[in-house]
């Protein structure tokens, strides 16, 4: 009997919701009240939260288009491909061609770190759903 695999919630995913909440709190409450520039709150935190917030939205769009065949949690290659594209777009094309954004190589590391942690959490959820006691 096949084991029922975990279904990904996209906009209902807990990792997405927690990271989106953290992003909004940082944007609306923390950053406006900072008295000095903070590399963490002004840049690195947003870049770290970007993949767990953006990837579910992008994957939902691909699902609606019909390109994504199922509702499994994000695969590693999906996360890595998007990190590569976003790194090129936001840290090269944006700053050098559109004159928008900052070309900081550390931000690419933040994208990658946030993506890997989120991917691990998403896989953990999938493993939990695959436990025998959670069979349908």
């Amino acid at each position, binding site marked *: 009997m096949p084991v029922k695999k975990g279904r990904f919630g996209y906009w209902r995913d807990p990792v997405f919701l927690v990271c989106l909440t953290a992003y909004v709190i940082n944007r609306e409450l923390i950053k406006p009240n900072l008295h000095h520039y903070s590399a963490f709150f002004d840049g690195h935190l*947003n870049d770290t939260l970007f993949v767990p917030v*953006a990837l579910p*939205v*992008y994957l939902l*769009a*691909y699902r609606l*288009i*019909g*390109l994504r065949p199922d509702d499994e949690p994000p695969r590693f290659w999906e996360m890595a491909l998007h990190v590569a*594209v*976003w790194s090129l*777009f*936001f840290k090269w094309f*944006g700053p050098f061609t*559109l004159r*928008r*954004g900052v070309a900081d190589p550390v931000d690419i590391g933040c994208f990658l770190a946030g993506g890997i942690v989120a991917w691990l959490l998403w896989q953990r959820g999938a493993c939990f759903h695959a436990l025998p006691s959670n069979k349908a």
Partner: protein
Amino acid sequence: MLQDLPNLTGAAGTWFVLAGKIVAAMGFMAAANLVVLYAC
């Protein structure tokens, strides 16, 4: 040869649909990336 035509059309149609989905996904990604770049 003529008997194979429906199959060839079907395969071409499948590839055409897949190409359309990929183009649509790339269009969404480009638009969404621009929104993030200018709004966030």
